[in-house]
């Protein structure tokens, strides 16, 4: 090896060593911020616990949630930790990617490594309950009295309640007032599928795109399809009924006639929203969590119409607080205390405002509405919403949903007709249900 080359090799080695040292210092200095803040929450109408001044005196409790976008310095983490301190313990909070959280929770339950409090998307609750990984309110002492029944629905399986909601979100139809007035459409006139389709035709006539939604082959796709599915009168136990076919045909016709862009087949709710944000789309089916950005662009909201009039039933989104099974059952009392703290009206309103969810209790909703009157549309939407795992579907729902989104995508992409796609889906779902 030449002298030059060996000098270079040394340079590379030195660079690596320096980088390595810097890296170690950088990584270590950031450190873990999950340890307590030590200061009890100053808000709250309730009395503060005398023992709350001693942080960490009761041990460490693990808290998992699907909010990786909230880091250690965020308000959410501070709230979680303060509720821990109020209950006399230190909380170690971890944010996971929501799609991975189900399997992480199952793996953890299998290995005896489950967290003390687990916040999961509501359709997952029935899966974890079936796996025997969660405790019921009878076991953990959580009270659910004030929570609206339809929002609590996803946590009730076979008469036992396995969790309490953090809040609810749901879907509605955002619209761009400028485009509608240009096209000569009155939003108040949209009360049924035919009036909506007619409006879309008028929008296309002035050269704009009619509507965006998320038709992707994931739970998001099913979530977005459900208002139309339920709005036709169809039921999840029979996804190949004529009403279901009518709902799917509505979407495929929109695609064929160019009222919805081809990309809806691959769009997540975020990317569908981004298309709406370009200002060239009249309608966007999207959720509560976009209301802030919607206000920024001047978009307004109407309820999703059912086929023949009235508002379509919409699915509830939003996570549930659950208390997983632990070897040491004496921990449940403290975990329940922490959850109650986080669900106390003041705290839950703060949280739901941050997450852009609607509070699950009447008191919370009233507090939200008095602070922001534009929420009344959303509160009414949530009031008529229903859980996806409701109607006693429980763990059948994920199996049905998977077939449903597959059928929707098949029909949207032209791989099959709506009725063929849905009958294949129904048989596949039935087969999967009988196996499991």
């Amino acid at each position, binding site marked *: *090896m030449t002298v030059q*080359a060996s000098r*270079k*090799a040394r*340079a*590379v080695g030195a*660079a*690596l060593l320096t*980088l*390595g040292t*810097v*890296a*170690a*210092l*950088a*990584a*270590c*200095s*950031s*450190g*873990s911020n*999950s340890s307590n803040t030590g200061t009890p929450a100053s808000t709250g109408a309730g009395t503060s616990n005398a023992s709350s001044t001693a942080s960490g005196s009761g041990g460490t409790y693990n808290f*998992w949630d*699907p*909010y*990786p*976008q909230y*880091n250690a310095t965020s308000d959410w983490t501070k709230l979680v930790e303060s509720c821990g301190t109020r209950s006399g313990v230190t909380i170690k909070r*971890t944010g*996971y*990617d*929501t799609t*991975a959280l189900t399997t*992480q929770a199952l*793996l953890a339950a*299998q*290995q*005896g*490594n489950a967290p003390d409090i687990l916040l999961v*998307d509501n359709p997952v609750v029935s899966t974890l309950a079936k796996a025997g990984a969660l405790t019921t309110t009878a076991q953990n002492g959580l009270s659910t009295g004030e929570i609206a029944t339809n929002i609590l629905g996803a946590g009730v399986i076979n008469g036992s309640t396995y969790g309490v909601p953090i809040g609810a*979100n749901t879907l509605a139809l955002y619209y761009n007032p400028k485009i509608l007035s240009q096209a000569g459409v009155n939003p108040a006139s949209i009360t049924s599928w035919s009036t909506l389709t007619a409006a879309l035709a008028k929008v296309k006539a002035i050269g704009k795109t009619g509507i965006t939604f998320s038709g992707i082959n994931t739970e998001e796709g099913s979530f977005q399809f459900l208002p139309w599915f339920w709005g036709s009168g169809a039921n999840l136990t029979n996804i190949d009924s004529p009403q279901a076919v009518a709902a799917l045909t509505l979407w495929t016709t929109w695609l064929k006639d160019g009222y919805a862009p081809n990309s809806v087949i691959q769009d*997540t*709710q*975020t*990317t569908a929203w*981004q*298309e709406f*944000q*370009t*200002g*060239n789309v009249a309608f966007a089916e999207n*959720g509560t*969590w976009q209301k802030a*950005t919607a206000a920024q*662009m001047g978009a307004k909201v109407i309820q999703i119409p059912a086929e023949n009039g009235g508002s379509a039933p919409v699915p509830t*989104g939003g*996570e549930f607080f659950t208390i997983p099974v632990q070897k040491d059952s004496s921990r449940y009392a403290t975990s329940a205390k922490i959850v109650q703290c986080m669900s106390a009206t003041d705290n839950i309103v703060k949280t739901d405002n941050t997450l852009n969810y609607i509070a699950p209790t009447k008191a919370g909703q009233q507090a939200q509405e008095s602070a922001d009157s534009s929420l009344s549309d959303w509160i009414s939407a949530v009031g008529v919403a229903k859980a996806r795992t409701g109607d006693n579907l429980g763990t059948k729902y994920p199996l049905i949903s998977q077939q449903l989104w597959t059928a929707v995508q098949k029909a949207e992409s032209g791989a099959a007709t709506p009725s063929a796609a849905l009958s294949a889906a129904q048989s596949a779902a039935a087969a999967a249900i009988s196996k499991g």
Partner: protein
Amino acid sequence: MTTNAKAPAKRTQKRRAWHLTALGVLFTALMLFPVYWMINVSLTQAGNMRKSPPNLIPIDGTLDGYTVVLRQQLPYLGTSLLIGIGTVALTLILAAPAGYSLAKLRPRGGGLLSFLLLIAQMIPAIVMAFGFYAIYIKLGLLGSVWGLILADSTIAVPFGVLIFTAFMTRIPDELLQAAKIDGAGPLRTFGSIVLPVSRNAIVTVSLFAFLWAWSDFLFANTLDSGGSMQPITLGIYAYIGNNNQQWNAIMATAVVASVPAAVLLVLAQKYVAAGVTAGAVKD
């Protein structure tokens, strides 16, 4: 006479070289176009993300993505670097001696070992991750940097053994005989003769191991999601919420994450070039 004849030959050679450089730049530009696009997206505002047709250059751009990333992602970059270097070290420690042994020392069952190492590479990553999760809980390695180093090395070690074996086979036996005559034991021979001569193989294996560890997501997600030190592939998830994704920040993270690795790449490229695998790859 000869000098005159050489002069025009040299000129055509130089012209040819420039023509090749131009071609090379074109190929590289084509290959790196998606990378350029990534940078473009990282500078685009949320409202313009789905503009049709998209802007070729980020007109009306924003540095929001970068400010957020530089404020939040540096610790993650540090951890990634640590894991990368750790993986390289572990891979070299395991693979180099094994390569030497398979190449020169002819252990019994060496053929079977090579075959098993090939099989090992066929196991899908998810299967590995599941298995590791269970082991790590018992060993307390969940959420630790060491756990990730061990897991990431499983991507690189079999390949490393392959490269070292192929390379070291070509070390002339006379060199090793000379050491033996001088009274050097196998360890000494390995340390003072084989390793220095195998510098290119070492750099190549290090490069592969580092890059594979740097871009690993599956192991990080399964085994370190709750850890206090997380690599950059998990750091990106800070911008992927339940219902909302902040794409300019995600792409900005990728750009920032690529820079240190790209630098290492350019520095190490010369060594990778100078002959890694050649001749038969012995079993």
